[in-house]
């Protein structure tokens, strides 16, 4: 779709500002009631999904041209999708998240991008990663010594963050070793392992995303892969939700789903007690955006004169069926671990701040967003914050809350390994 094709939604957005808050039915305090980091940080209505609808409408109508401020605001969106969930509590015919990303794409096509994005694109082009400063030659260093299979249908896909961040090495290796120990014939693409480009899509760079997706899909098919297992929530979302539209037709699992499956089948048993009170952070791309892709092509159809529906029935992504329970079942199965929940969880979770490439493009905003979450985590009394995404972990790591206190941040894979 083009931005022009979103005009009906831009005009039908009812300006209620529900997109700025978690679903009201879930509000337990004023402190943790807001949902959109961008509007909380930037302040102007413009940052909200509603503001983006209105700004985009003026762009589509030719009444506005992108200014420097507008360009910055357009790209200061974590693509976390919290607005989308909140909007769809009542609305059945608006797609705020898809529109936010389409607006980014429109700005990109108009040449309105941020300096940090240029560096990311350069790294993507030359080193096949969106993390500037990393080298393709070093990408597989983490895998040294792991007995990956030469043959097999299950592919382990670590993603850029796990591949390059030395602080995450234990988790990325731990997950692979755990799956291999459980009897999975696990493969790794080695030289062929490159960025999934999901973040490019989140930033509105559709064309390079599609090219990369096409390349990766060809690789997977050629290697006979039937299942992808990834510990990265961003990659999971790319494969689960974005790649199918580009032709990928294989099973996609996050590591937590695989571990949960092994636990339920009795193939994995915890043997050690981990005396720890933890809280769990739902990664946006595993949780509310982790719902499976449903192919659809159709058009709007009005019934009863003016009621908007879609023909055929259109899939409705509102976060209801994201991956929330698998990580919680794993945490609660570990002897000694006590799970205490934050106020904003599951489909209405607060973002870690790394989404949409913002940890690169607007690190101050990204850090502030993480700090807000650490404040919420610390308010539970938990000793540690557990998550299932390397981007979330890295963003929380060492980040002080509003009182200057940090919290131990544990990758769920590391927590599992502590109990084995």
């Amino acid at each position, binding site marked *: 779709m083009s931005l022009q094709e979103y005009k009906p939604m831009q005009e039908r957005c*009812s*300006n209620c500002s529900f997109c700025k808050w978690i679903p*009201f039915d879930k509000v337990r305090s004023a402190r943790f009631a807001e949902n959109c980091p961008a509007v909380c940080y930037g302040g102007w*209505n413009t940052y909200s999904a509603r503001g983006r609808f209105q700004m985009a409408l003026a762009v589509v109508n030719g009444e506005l041209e992108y200014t420097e401020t507008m360009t910055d605001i357009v790209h200061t969106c974590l693509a976390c999708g919290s607005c989308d969930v909140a909007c769809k*509590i009542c609305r059945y015919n608006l797609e705020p998240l898809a529109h936010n990303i389409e607006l980014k794409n429109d700005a990109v096509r108009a040449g309105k991008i941020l300096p940090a994005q240029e560096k990311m694109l350069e790294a993507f082009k030359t080193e096949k990663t969106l993390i500037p400063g990393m080298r393709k030659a070093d990408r597989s260093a983490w895998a040294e010594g792991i007995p990956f299979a030469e043959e097999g249908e299950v592919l382990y896909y670590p993603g850029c963050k796990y591949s390059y961040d030395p602080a995450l090495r234990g988790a990325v290796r731990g997950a692979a070793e755990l799956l291999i120990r459980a009897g999975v014939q696990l493969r790794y693409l080695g030289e062929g392992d490159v960025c999934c480009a999901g973040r490019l899509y989140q930033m509105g760079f559709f064309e390079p995303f599609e090219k990369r997706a096409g390349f990766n899909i060809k690789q997977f098919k050629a290697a006979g892969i039937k299942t992808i297992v990834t510990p990265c929530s961003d990659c999971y979302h790319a494969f689960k939700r974005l790649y199918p539209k580009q032709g990928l037709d294989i099973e996609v699992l996050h590591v937590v789903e695989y571990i949960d499956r092994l636990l339920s089948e009795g193939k994995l048993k915890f043997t050690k007690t981990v005396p720890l009170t933890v809280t769990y952070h739902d990664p946006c791309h595993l949780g509310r955006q982790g719902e499976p892709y449903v192919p659809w092509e159709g058009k709007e159809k*009005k*019934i009863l*004169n*003016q009621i908007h*529906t879609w023909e055929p029935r259109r899939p409705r992504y509102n976060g209801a069926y994201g991956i929330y329970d698998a990580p919680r079942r794993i945490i609660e199965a570990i002897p000694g671990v006590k799970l205490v929940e934050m106020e904003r969880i599951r489909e209405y979770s607060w973002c870690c701040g790394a989404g949409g490439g913002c940890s690169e493009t607007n690190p101050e905003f990204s850090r502030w967003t993480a700090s807000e979450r650490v404040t919420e985590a610390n308010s539970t009394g938990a000793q540690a914050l557990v998550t299932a995404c390397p981007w979330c972990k890295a963003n929380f790591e060492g980040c002080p809350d509003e009182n200057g206190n940090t919290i131990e941040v544990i990758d769920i894979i590391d927590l599992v390994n502590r109990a084995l």
Partner: protein
Amino acid sequence: MALDKEIYKALEAIVGERNISSDPGVCETYRCAAAQSSAHYGPYDHRTPMPQAVVMPGSTEEVQGIIRICNKYKLKYKASTTFWSAHGYIGSDFAIQLDMRRMKKIEIDRDNMIAVVEPYAIAATVQAEAMKYGLTCNIPGVGCSSSILANTAGWGGPGPSSVFTGNASENFLCAEWVLPTGEVLVTGSAGAGAGWFSGEGPGPGQRAILRGARGTTGEMGVCTKISLKLSPWPGPRYIPSEGLPPAYRAKLPENFKAYAICFPDWDRWAQAMMALCDAEIVYAAHRQFSMFGRDIKAAMLRILTDPDKQLCDIPALNMDPEIQAANESLKIEMYVVLAGMTPADMAWKEQALNEILEKYGGWKDKMCLEPDMAEWLLMYFTRLGHKNLNYALCGSYEGHFGLNSGNLIKSASVCEEAFALKREWEQKDNFMAAIGGDSSMGGLSSIGGGGGPMLWEFFCHFDAHDKASIDKVRDYFNGVSAVWQAQMGFGGDFSKNCEAGRKESGYAYSQEEHNEIFSRAPQPEPFIFQWKIREAFNPNHLGDSYYQTLDPKYLEKRA
């Protein structure tokens, strides 16, 4: 006209670089689309004027500074918070918008059962904080997403629970009021430094001047803090909400019950509503889901309580005999919530409700007694967090020829005639949703009683993207309002609710235009009174025309 650099710099010096913008993209998002129903003066296919700049003050002192600058340069301003309604947007070209989102403190005084709140404290957050102390607040009909200060000090404020909590005007206590000149007046007991518990002293009792019937409407300075009365909440410290989106359900204890109560005819319905008011048994009462229309309300209840259903399921659902039976059962209905303070109180309330039902031949709707549905209803009415459902069908709606006569018996006696008229218009053209004529919504009452608000917001769903739909709906309103208001004496027409506040163009009226309008009012005196207040408090007229005034000299001249 671009805002003069000197003015911009002066404002920037007050709020800081980060909290002021004149970027066209930013300012564009502070315009109200008049095709949206919240405009309540159209609908029209245009937006309200573009502000010269948007400013986000962070304190009372900063608000004072901004207002003084505005007075110096005769620059108009309007403060707003949650921006749903056209009321909150500027109405002139040489004007700035104040976005009050940085001021959102909430203090709960448990002992005095009051909340002291800043402008960006919305009803949901105030209620959530109050519940921690066993208290709750009135959530106005606009829903919990809106500023409770704006509702309390600036405009109307009745809601489904007003019959228990009182509506906004009944709960308003003290205010920290930045006058239109930039001075600060603290009213009520807070003005005497005695705390925020009383609106009428010790200290200056200015509620009548500050608020009156309709509030400051953005014309009379800026309220930066108010106190309001809270009510007892006999439930847990937060609403335990379960289920998949959007079908969240409240798992409240046994002392909470939600029912759809139904009656065989409008006369007995009206008698029962008055009996409900007299009995003082309900926590909330609202004829709510009728807004979807008589023909599809049961289908909509099924859709809203099932995460897998969508609007495209309406036709199939309507073929289901169970839905058809529910539509028939729910034809003449009211949704009520009972909240018992003790088990005995709950038993008494249940018994009283049953007796009222028996006396007037009423029943509890079967579908709404299903546990999941009843819990969803409890969630809906205790938090009022789904008000955007108003727009769910078509993207926009407007309320038309409200049957608000102040006399429920009179309204009830003609409502079927009104419904038939709407159904006729639904059938003869495609510009609004054809949902069965009756789409009339309204709350039971406030503590003050009266029952007037019921049947007052008569939903007409249309498409803000379809220009013909907008235009024809406006023509329809103009046509039917003329008959039902002018000839039959009904009022409270939502489509005309802001007609005297903002011109068709989206701009504010001039004083000359207001003189012309209000000199024709049956009782022009209140507008003259407001003119006097404005002259005393707001000599530079830096607000807009939602504050409705009539210059007495105009009347003298005309005489």
